């Protein structure tokens, strides 16, 4: 391999300040492990972050790996009693963070003194900076992405009147059978849609307070499941089958086979339009009661060999310079993970400008219509219940 480190060397120590980190990291190579299926995000790392790191004398290697595989690798290292490994920065959130924390795979100390940009742009009181889907963060993660579910509807098929609530959605479906569907959970967006329906039908509190057991959750979300079952016969293929991936659903939407698709990116319709995949007909909207928003994070495994470089990378990714670039369409127009109150004006303006230009929602609108995530533990339970009571309901 290209990294000539002996395997029994002890994983490096996490530096205590950014300054020492910067010094220590010079000449090192830092690996960034993350989901590689988004070419805009890949491009951002490669075109923006990597050159910035290079200026600091640090090389970046991006490894496209799914989070479950990353976790498995980390547990394998732990089981094999290895103190040092190859993974420096991980893109993680939710259930996986919960697991990683449980297995104590992550190193802590990712605090304000180590990551100065966190101090600048993220307020300590921001709930998303404190816990990740209900799991306390304890300085093990740093916010990286800010995503919120948006609906994309066909102007022509909805006649400009978008179903901004579950009730509207149901009645439109009854009038236009076969024109709606959603990706089957456990797909990421499909699962988010189901949670959104839960918020619509029983509200965030009900699910938030329910015990994290199958019975508990079932009791809480029974009305939601009923709603989905009522909707089912009016879905595409009468709900007997669902698209398997959001890509497939996007294609159906592009072909006007269905009237609505979802995305975790408010600019998705715009980028798809620019790409020629969607027509001008695609219109972004959210439910009146709001949609699920969640954060993704960066973390450093305990076995990382280059913790200093990892810290520098995280800080660089959070920098205004990098995040401003990230607003560009070719980098996916991603909203920075900054706390609402600390977003620099230039970025807000930029986003709002884009929103107008591309006929999508502004930052402001979005953050108003944002509902928090349920606890990570409950997500698989909800998915199971959906499978049992909606998908396989007779």
């Amino acid at each position, binding site marked *: *391999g*290209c*990294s000539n480190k002996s*395997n029994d060397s002890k994983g490096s120590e996490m530096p205590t300040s950014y300054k020492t980190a910067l010094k220590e990291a010079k000449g090192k190579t830092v*690996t960034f*492990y993350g*989901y*590689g*299926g*988004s*070419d805009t995000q890949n491009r951002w790392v*490669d075109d923006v972050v990597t050159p910035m790191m290079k200026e600091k004398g640090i090389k970046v*290697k991006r*490894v*496209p*790996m*799914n989070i479950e*595989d990353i976790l*498995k*690798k980390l547990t*394998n*290292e732990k*089981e*094999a009693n*290895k103190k040092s*490994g*190859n*993974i420096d920065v991980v893109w993680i959130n939710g259930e996986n963070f919960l697991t990683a924390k449980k297995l104590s795979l992550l190193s802590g100390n990712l605090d304000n003194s180590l990551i100065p940009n966190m101090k600048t742009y993220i307020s300590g009181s921001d709930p998303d900076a404190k816990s990740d889907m209900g799991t306390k963060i304890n300085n093990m993660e740093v916010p990286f992405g800010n995503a919120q579910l948006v609906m994309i509807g066909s102007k022509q098929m909805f006649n400009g009147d978008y179903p901004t609530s579950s009730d509207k959605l149901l009645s439109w479906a009854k009038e236009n059978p076969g024109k709606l569907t959603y990706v089957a959970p456990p797909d990421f967006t499909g699962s988010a849609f189901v949670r959104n329906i839960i918020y619509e039908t029983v509200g965030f509190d009900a699910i938030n307070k329910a015990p994290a057991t199958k019975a508990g959750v079932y009791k809480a979300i029974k009305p939601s499941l009923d709603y989905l079952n009522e909707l089912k016969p009016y879905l595409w293929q009468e709900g007997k089958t669902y698209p398997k*991936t*959001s*890509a*497939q659903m*996007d*294609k159906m939407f*592009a*072909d*006007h*086979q269905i009237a609505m698709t979802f995305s975790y990116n408010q600019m998705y319709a715009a980028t798809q339009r620019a*790409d*020629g*995949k969607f027509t001008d007909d695609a219109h972004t909207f959210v439910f009146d009661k709001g949609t699920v928003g969640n954060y993704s994070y960066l973390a450093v495994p305990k076995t990382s060999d280059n913790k200093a470089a990892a810290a520098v990378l995280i800080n660089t990714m959070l920098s205004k310079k990098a995040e401003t670039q990230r607003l560009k369409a070719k980098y996916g127009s991603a909203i920075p993970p900054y706390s609402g109150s600390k977003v620099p004006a230039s970025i807000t303006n930029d986003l709002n400008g884009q929103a107008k230009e591309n006929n999508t929602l502004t930052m402001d609108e979005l953050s108003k219509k944002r509902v928090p995530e349920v606890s990570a533990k409950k997500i698989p339970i909800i998915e199971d219940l959906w499978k049992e009571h909606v998908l396989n309901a007779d």
Partner: protein
Amino acid sequence: MASKKILKLLVYLLFAVLVLMPLFVIFMLAISKTWNYPSLWPKWVDWGYYFRFLITNAEMQASLLSSMELAVGTVVLTILIAYPTAMALSYYDFKGKKLLNILVYLPMIIPSIAVLTNMDFIMIKYGLNGSFFGVVSAHTLFCLPYAIKLLYDNLILWKDKYEVTSRNLGATPLQTFFKVTIPLNKNGLQGAVMMSYIVSMTQYLGTLLIGDGNYITLSVRMFPFTTEGKYRIAAVYGITFMLVTLIPLYLIDVWVTHKGRKLA
């Protein structure tokens, strides 16, 4: 007679369409932007896109290199292991042969998640993770069933008849292997090499897990895009993939068919 010939030709034609249609679609996907229902032809085709991408994308070139590096390594290791095994299976009668015959299939039968995640653990233990040998070993594991069985199918036809003859005429085991065994079974060998090369090229999870990110091959890059429906990029990678698979294999084929005549 004539109608039979025409029927045969029709079958050929149908077969060709079935094989080529998807390839054509992939090719079009790689160079087109908008291709929505109900248009039969993409609205927007950029013939140069693919080549521009290939030439300008350094990542792609790096991936190409590591893909081929691994594939060649895998082919070598696979053949080194598979040949003797196939010989043993086809020439000898021994206790446990039946069991071994079945065990050979094991690596491909066990779901790769179960094997690879645990193999990764073993590799980490031995300190082989991230190394060339480690990744090649992981690939080899999945090539072995194909290689052994293809070689076996071929070796069983002659058994050791001609090897015995060669040894009897004074050839050393090595001479026998290269002058008799290989030329007589080159069809099987070609098949085994081809399958190993292909299986290695298409390995995704193994390369990623055991490669520790040191080997970002074409498959590794491509896989997330396909599952995510980034069809155009996937198609671009796909075409490249096809080329680097087809060209070497085609060359091998030409070499094999031109070197010496066909058998019997």
